[in-house]
């Protein structure tokens, strides 16, 4: 995915190039292109670290600090996760990134029928505060921040994190948590949603409002264009939809009487890096500019720092192939190059074998080295935004800006993101595009190096005989023991806790959910009383109901 469309002539020359976002590319660019568009340095770029931040958020960028790389952790039991956390901190990591298993993500306890086969498989199984206490035991929560990859029940996990910290003697204004907490993107591209759209957004709003008032060091939302892109959106749509999702959350919180200035500075983003390199670079530069402009012009934010498009530009999973997996090493390197040329603050890279297996330590290390090489050896730290002034890149950045705004306008015309997602319009568009691209790939219209296509089959013989197409998949292991242990813990918990206290707090939670009271304080109390994730999410399920996804075709 992500490859541009090339129309070639009989001799292999390229007649036409069209990027996924719809932008056509000329054979060459010159000063006239910029002049035609009224390009000026002050308006369109700004100095590094100055509005609109097209070049960079900071004046020195990599000269002062290399990019931050993040690695995910958390699988199986809280005990194992705790060990892994301690190991990473000993190795110098100063932030934790936590993955949760699917039952936890979906608000089910480990003994729920739907949890079968999933307990602890893709992340940590969390059923109650006890599990968090085990996972974070001995971790200096005033110094180490935690990113939580959790969305539908982010409110519950945030509350649980706070309760854990309080149990260990920290105060809530000391701790830093960054839940992903972007339910709208789940509904477009990741699937871990529970409640209907408006209620999902209400919960996000509750968590932001609460963070503003009670968790000053926490970043309540990380908006993920990443998954939307993985589902079939173009690079321009990735940014456009992410910004419209941000808008939906901002508007929800503003309605509560909180000024955008007080919270938008803590939003962060998660964007993808695969595909055509120039398209990605233009995308990121345009995104920085547009976000700053949107916040300044539409939401009246004046503090410079709060206009930053903070985020992780990385991943690239959809660009990798099962066939000839070593090619993914090079792909990863080029994607990372694009991210570096875009001035990504934080990055991560999918491992070359990720298309068909859980990354081995070796492949994970390769990814890390790929990123290191760019920073420390090949020269990507030498100067800020080296491509600035390039006739091509600046023209492309302007065109990308136009495309993004176009896509944003379309969403607004259709009543905003919440409307579009409720009615299925975005999902429909994105699935269609994914389908068309896949068709194009199979027919040879789009080319991915190393993959069989009608063209290459003619040369190299039948696809079925192509050795590399037989790369096998390996899977996340599933350990029955994890499930057994979790279920046993649950049983014990239910027997030893104060049932009355749990029930009272759950009742108070339900009351808050039914009205427009912020659910967070009630969730914290529920966590302290050892209510389970399933019980708390159950209250929400009862009050809000479950979302019936719309059709997508």
């Amino acid at each position, binding site marked *: 995915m992500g490859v541009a469309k090339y129309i070639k002539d009989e001799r292999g020359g390229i007649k036409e190039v069209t990027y996924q976002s719809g932008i056509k590319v000329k054979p060459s660019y010159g000063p006239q292109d910029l002049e035609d568009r009224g390009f000026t340095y002050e308006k369109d770029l700004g100095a590094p670290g100055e509005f609109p931040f097209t070049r960079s958020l900071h004046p020195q960028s990599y000269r002062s600090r290399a990019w931050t790389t993040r690695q995910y952790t958390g699988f199986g039991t809280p005990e194992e996760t705790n060990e892994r956390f301690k190991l990473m901190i000993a190795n110098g990591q100063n932030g934790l990134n936590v993955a949760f298993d699917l039952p936890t993500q*979906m608000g089910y306890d480990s003994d729920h029928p739907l949890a*079968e086969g999933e307990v602890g498989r893709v992340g940590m199984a969390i059923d109650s505060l006890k599990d968090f206490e085990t996972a974070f035991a001995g971790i200096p929560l005033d110094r180490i921040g935690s990113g939580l990859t959790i969305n539908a029940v982010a409110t519950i996990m945030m509350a649980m994190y706070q309760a854990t910290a309080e149990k260990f003697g920290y105060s809530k204004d000391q701790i830093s948590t960054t839940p992903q907490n972007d339910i709208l993107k789940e509904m477009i591209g990741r699937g*871990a949603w529970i409640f209907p759209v408006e209620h999902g957004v209400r919960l996000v709003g509750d968590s932001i409002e609460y963070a503003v008032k009670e968790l000053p060091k926490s970043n309540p939302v990380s908006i993920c264009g990443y998954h939307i892109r993985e589902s079939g959106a173009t690079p321009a749509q990735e940014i456009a939809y992410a910004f419209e999702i941000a808008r939906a959350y901002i508007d929800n919180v503003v309605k509560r009487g909180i000024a955008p200035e007080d919270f938008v500075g803590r939003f962060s983003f998660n964007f993808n890096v695969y595909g055509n390199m120039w398209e990605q670079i233009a995308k990121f530069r345009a995104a920085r500019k547009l976000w700053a402009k949107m916040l300044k012009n539409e939401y009246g934010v004046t503090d410079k720092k709060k206009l930053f498009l903070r985020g992780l530009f990385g991943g690239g999973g959809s660009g990798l192939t099962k066939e000839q997996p070593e090619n993914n090493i090079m792909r990863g390197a080029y994607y990372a190059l694009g991210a570096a040329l875009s001035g990504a603050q934080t990055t991560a890279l999918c491992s070359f074998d990720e298309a068909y297996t859980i990354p081995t330590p070796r492949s994970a290390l390769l990814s890390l080295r790929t990123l290191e090489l760019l920073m420390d050896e090949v020269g990507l730290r030498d100067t800020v935004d080296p491509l600035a002034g390039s006739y091509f890149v600046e023209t492309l950045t302007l065109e990308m800006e136009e495309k993004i705004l176009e896509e944003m306008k379309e969403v607004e015309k259709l009543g905003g993101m919440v409307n579009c997602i409720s009615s299925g319009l975005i999902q429909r568009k994105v*699935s269609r595009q*994914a*389908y068309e691209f896949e068709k194009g790939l199979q027919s040879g219209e789009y080319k991915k190096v190393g993959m069989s296509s009608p063209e290459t089959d003619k040369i190299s013989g039948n696809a079925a005989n192509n050795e590399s*197409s*037989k790369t096998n*998949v390996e899977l996340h292991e599933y350990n029955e023991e994890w499930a057994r242990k979790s279920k046993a813990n649950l049983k014990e918990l239910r027997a030893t806790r104060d049932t009355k206290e749990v029930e009272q707090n759950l009742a108070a939670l339900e009351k808050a959910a039914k009205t427009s009271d912020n659910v967070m304080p009630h969730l914290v109390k529920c966590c302290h009383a050892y209510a389970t994730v399933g019980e708390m999410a159950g209250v929400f399920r009862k009050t809000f109901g479950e979302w019936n*996804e719309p059709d997508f075709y």
Partner: protein
Amino acid sequence: MEKKIRVLIAKPGLDGHDKGAKIIALALRDAGMEVIYSGLHQTLEQIIHTATQEAVDIIGLSIMSGAHLPICEKLIAMMKEAGISDINLVVGGVIPFQDIPGLKEMGVAAVFPGGTSFEEIVQGMKDLFTK
């Protein structure tokens, strides 16, 4: 009247990766089949219920979680109990090659691991009715 192949594309379990399922649904539609898409987070009971009411010819499970063996085993037993063993069960998604014989032995009619072309899948499904 023409005989149309009716396919239920189902996503069992909690995994939310539905891109593959949706793309296949569109491809099958373009190949002239009638596709019922189950939506995410389906229990096996729901799948049986839907397949029965909709009188489908094929149940197509899209499994990206690696739990295909236990899921198929269970579903086949439930299909027998519900009296719909005549419906063909096919599976797609993240399926290691070495698991294919085991699946077939259980009674899965066809397996289409990720990366199988649309053409192969459509033909594979049509072939189920020409035996």
